[in-house]
């Protein structure tokens, strides 16, 4: 079996649609380690990617006014037990463009793997980018994943992301995103992670509301059990008239796991408003009793509640 077939099998096993490789209307970029295995651009989308010693560098450009109907699929992974993958991505959506991305990051056998993502994203005026990133790190917890992104959202633009790591172990995760939001622009950052064993989760997301009437939401949903730890820092700054931001963090803790939430809100304009809410603790007793009154065991009830929060 070729490396591409191996990766696509793991991709399929983790819920991905393997037909993306054959469908000519769907753009994709597939990389294993530092090898680019497959790549396709479509009209209005330019993808330039090259291999480096430790990973790949990719430049993605969605041209002015281009509406990309099908999501662009990115598939990055390491199929070996050990390895390093450094991805540098520059993404630019020009004025009035629209594109959705679905990124699969697959490390099914990771015992000593390091995956570093460094992205710079520029959303042009009235452009919109939706980015969904699904991770699978396998059962061993032997992985370090360090995604970093600097994003600028132009006037009337939208940037919506959803990071999900809810199957298998996490290993060590350190997310660091910063989004600067322009006039009338909107951003929503969602992260959902389920940690087990001695997994370590650190999420730092910062939204800077620079433009008038800009809006930002940071939503984090974490469940941790056994000896896992989670530290969530949600920072929102409101620096312009009519800016509205909200930080919403919920962490469910089981066993000896330890969770921490650090919401930081800063307002430098009298007509801006930023709010935050954080709830950390064990599963809500009333929720638990309600589900048990419907015939679920305590374990089943906890599972339904946790899966619901991470959905």
């Amino acid at each position, binding site marked *: 079996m070729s490396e591409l077939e191996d990766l696509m099998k793991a991709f399929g096993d983790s819920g991905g649609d393997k037909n993306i490789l054959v469908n000519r209307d769907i753009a994709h970029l597939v990389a294993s380690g530092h090898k680019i295995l497959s790549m396709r651009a479509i009209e209005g989308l330019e993808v330039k990617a090259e291999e480096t010693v430790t990973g790949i560098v990719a430049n993605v450009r969605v041209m002015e006014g281009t509406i990309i109907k099908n999501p662009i699929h990115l598939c990055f992974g390491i199929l070996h037990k050990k390895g390093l993958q450094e991805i540098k991505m520059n993404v630019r959506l020009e004025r009035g463009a629209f594109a959705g991305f679905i990124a699969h990051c697959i490390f099914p056998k990771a015992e000593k793997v390091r995956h570093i993502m460094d992205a710079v994203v520029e959303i042009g005026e009235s452009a919109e980018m939706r980015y969904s990133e699904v991770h699978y790190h396998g059962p061993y917890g032997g992985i370090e994943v360090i995604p970093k992104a600097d994003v600028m959202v132009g006037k009337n633009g939208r940037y919506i992301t959803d990071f999900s790591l809810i199957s298998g172990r996490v290993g060590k995760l350190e997310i660091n995103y910063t989004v600067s939001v322009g006039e009338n622009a909107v951003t929503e950052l969602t992260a959902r992670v389920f940690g087990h064993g001695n997994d370590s989760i650190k999420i730092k997301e910062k939204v800077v509301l620079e433009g008038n009437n800009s809006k930002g939401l940071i939503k984090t*949903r974490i469940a941790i059990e056994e000896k896992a730890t989670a530290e969530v820092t949600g920072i929102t700054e409101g620096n312009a008239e009519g800016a509205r931001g909200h930080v919403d963090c*919920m962490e469910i803790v089981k066993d000896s796991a330890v969770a921490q939430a650090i919401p930081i809100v800063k307002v430098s304009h009298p007509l801006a408003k930023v709010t935050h809410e954080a709830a950390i603790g064990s599963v*809500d*007793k*009333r*929720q638990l*009793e*309600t*589900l*048990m*009154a*419907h*015939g*679920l*065991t*305590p374990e089943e*009830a906890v599972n*339904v*509640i946790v*899966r*619901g*929060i*991470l*959905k």
Partner: protein
Amino acid sequence: MHLLEIKDITYRVKEKEIFSGLSLAVETGEVRAILGKNGTGKSTLAYLVMGCESYIPTSGEILFEGKVINDIKLHQRARLGITLAWQEPVRFEGISVRDYLTLKSKEVDPSGYLEMVGLYPELYLDRMLDKSLSGGERKRIELASIVALEPRLAVLDEPDSGIDMLSMQDIINVIDALKKNGTAVLLISHREEIAKVADSASLICNGKIVCSGNPEKVAQYYKSRKCEVCIEEVCVYV
């Protein structure tokens, strides 16, 4: 043998005695209204029957089909066929109305249960059971879920209260559906109108059942009460 029998229970929280020698029996398929003013312990009675955490009688017994259930856990009581609709149902993130109505069995068709409580399935089945629902919508869905469970005994705590109040017809529909399944209902309320849909009623006051029988008569007693909240004096209607 009674379906539910509460035998001479006392329930004390710290120094306060909530119930002192309360007894009550409910038969299979019977709809029993429990009336009482605010603060008389009606919800506490519901939690004791359901077996909620830390709600264990200080003395006395609760029997279900002749078996003492004082030490049986909440989920095990649910498996015996007891369920409870809380006065203010909780909300859940990421759980759809469809998921909730089919928790017990995926074979259940949830549409009919929603229609029964006045909600259009096409508008509600895929909605989340979270804070996007109004209090009244959430309450209707809770009642629909209770009927879908087909329990032996349903304890409905103040089903007619809520931010967006349910109509009496909705309550009647739910009661009728439960009765059709042979479910007994313990219908807890502080409003005497609710007794109209019951087969029998009991008035709770000062930690005891002070009268039981014909719902209209009990409601009449209740209506002519002189105190708005329980002031822990022996009820004059005993």
